[in-house]
C-alpha cells in the first residue's frame, strides 16, 4: 500500500485517501475496502462511500467509543480498524466485477453534443460512436444524483471538457462525457456534460429493493441501438 492518508470528514466520519488521481488500481482498493467493511461491520459502523481514490466511512461516535474504549477517540479507533482491514485486503476477490450492457441511441436528438465532440476531436460522429462504444468502462463511484455513475476512462481522442454553461435540463437517461469521465443522468437534472446519446434503461428504480442499477466496481459497455 502506498501513502494512505486518514482525514476527518466531520466528527462522525473519516476519509481514507489512497491518492489524488483517477486510477483503476486505487479505485479497486477503495471499492474492496468499502465492501469489506460493509460485509464485516464494526460496532458503530453506519456506511461507506467509495470514490475515485478514497473510501469514506461514517460511524456512530458513541457506539465506537463504547466498544473501543482503549483508543483516545472514535477517529483513532476507526482508523485502526481500517488499518487492519487494509493489511490483508484482497482487491480482486471481494467484489467480482459484473459486466452490464446498456443499449444507447446515438443520434442528434438523443445526443445533441455529438457534433461538438466530433468537431473537437476532428473526426466524424460515426467515429466518435465507434470509439466510445468500443471501450469497457469501470464504474468508479456514484454521486451527484441517486444512481448517477461516474465511469471511465473515455478514450483520449474523444475526451471533451464540460460545457462552459450547463444546460438547465438534461433528460433522464442521457449519456454524457466530461473530460475522461462518462456518466448516465439517472434523473432529469441541470448538467454540464457533453451529451452524446440516451438510454431507455432506468439507472434509478426507487421502488426496487436495490434502487440503483450500477454499483461501484461494475464494468459497463454501451451498445449502440437504433430507436
Amino acid at each position, binding site marked *: 500500500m502506498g501513502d494512505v492518508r486518514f482525514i476527518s470528514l*466531520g466528527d462522525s466520519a473519516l476519509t481514507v485517501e489512497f491518492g489524488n488521481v483517477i486510477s483503476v488500481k486505487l479505485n479497486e482498493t477503495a471499492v474492496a475496502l468499502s465492501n469489506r467493511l460493509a460485509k464485516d461491520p464494526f460496532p458503530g459502523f453506519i456506511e461507506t462511500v467509495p470514490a475515485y481514490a478514497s473510501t469514506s466511512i461514517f460511524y456512530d461516535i458513541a457506539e465506537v*467509543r463504547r466498544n473501543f474504549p482503549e483508543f483516545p*477517540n472514535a477517529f483513532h479507533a476507526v482508523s485502526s480498524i481500517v488499518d487492519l482491514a487494509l493489511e490483508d485486503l484482497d482487491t480482486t476477490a471481494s467484489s467480482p466485477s459484473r459486466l452490464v450492457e446498456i443499449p444507447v441511441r446515438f443520434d442528434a436528438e438523443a445526443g445533441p453534443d455529438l457534433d461538438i465532440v466530433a468537431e473537437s476531436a476532428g473526426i466524424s460522429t460515426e467515429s466518435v460512436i465507434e470509439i466510445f462504444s468500443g471501450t469497457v468502462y469501470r464504474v468508479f463511484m*456514484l*454521486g451527484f444524483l441517486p444512481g448517477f455513475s461516474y465511469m471511465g476512462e473515455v478514450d483520449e481522442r474523444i475526451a471533451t471538457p464540460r460545457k462552459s454553461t450547463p444546460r438547465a435540463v438534461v433528460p433522464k437517461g442521457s449519456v454524457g462525457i466530461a473530460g475522461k469521465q462518462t456518466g448516465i443522468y439517472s434523473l432529469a437534472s441541470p448538467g454540464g456534460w457533453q451529451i452524446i446519446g440516451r438510454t431507455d434503461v432506468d439507472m*434509478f428504480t426507487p421502488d426496487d429493493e436495490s434502487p*440503483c442499477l450500477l454499483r461501484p466496481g461494475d464494468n459497463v459497455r454501451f451498445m449502440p441501438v437504433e430507436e
Partner: protein
Amino acid sequence: MSILIQKPGILTTIQDLGRHGFRRFGINPGGVMDPAAARMVNALLGNNERDAVLEMHFPAPQIIFEKGAVAAIGGADFLPHLDGEPLQLWQEFRAKPGSMLTFAGKGSGNRAYLAIKGGLEIDQWLGSSSTNLIAGRGGFSGRRLEAKDRVDLRASALENLDSTGTRLSPWIIPPYSSTPTVRVIPGAEFQSLSDRSLEIFLSRQFEISGKSDRMGFRLIGEAVELSDRAEMISSAVSFGTIQALPDNQLIILMADHQTTGGYPRLAHVISRDLPLIGQLGPGDKVAFQLVTLDKAEKLYLEFERNLKFLGAGSKFESAPN
C-alpha cells in the same frame, strides 16, 4: 385520523433523522436540518426520536387537527397559535378536534418542527420517512405538503389525549442565534489556507446568501483563498462540510447535500453545532471557531447524554396551569 393542511406554507416537508446506508448509490441521508429540535420535540412527547415530524419554513402552514391530538413545536419561533391562543415552544399542548394551528410571524430561527404524540403514519422509503425531493420519494408522496393534503396519524396518537403540558427544561436547548459562532474541525484541505485566509476564516462573519436551501448555504464574505488549488478528484462530503468555491467564497453543505463533491474541504461544522446552522437563513451571519476532534467528540457525547436524560423523563418540568 389525520391533520389537514389548510394552507401549505412555503416549504413544509416530512422529515426524520435521515436515510442511512445509501450514500454510496448517490442517495443522500436528507432528514431534518435541525436534528436537536426534532429529537427534543419527539422526546418531550415520549415518541421515538426517529419518528417523523413536519419541518416548516416561514411563511408557515395552517393546520387543522381533524380528530384532536397532543403535539409540540420546537426549533424556530414562528409565533404559533392554536385557535388564536398563543402556544409556547418546547411545550406539549392538546389540540381539540377541529382546532387550527397558525403561525403569526417570523420570530426567530428558520425551521420549526411539529411532532404529534404517538407519531405520524408515514410510509418509509429505504428505511426512512424523510422527503427526498429529487428522487420524489419518502415523506408525503415524495413531495412538499400542499393545501388539502391529509397527513395520517398513527392509531396510538389517539389513544391518549391527556396532556400535562410538559415542557422542556431550557438548559438542554441549543444556544440558537441569528449570529452564532459555530465550532469546526479542520478538513482535508485546511492546510492549504494561506495565513491571511486562515485569519479571515476564523475571525470574520460570513452572511448566509439568498442562494441557500436545504442542499447548502452560500456564504458572502471576504475572499478565502487557498495557497494551493490543486486539481481535485471527487470524494464523499457530509452535512456541515465547508467548501471553498472557485470564486473563493464559501459554502456549507446542509441536509440535502449531494453525496460527493470535488471542491476543497476547508472544515466541518461539529455535530453538536449542526442545529445552530440548521436554524440560519438568508441575512443571518455565522462565525467559525476551531476546536480539536477530541473536543468535538466530547461535545457530541455530552449532548447524547443530555438527550438520554430527557428520554428518561427525569428532566421535565410541568408548567403551571
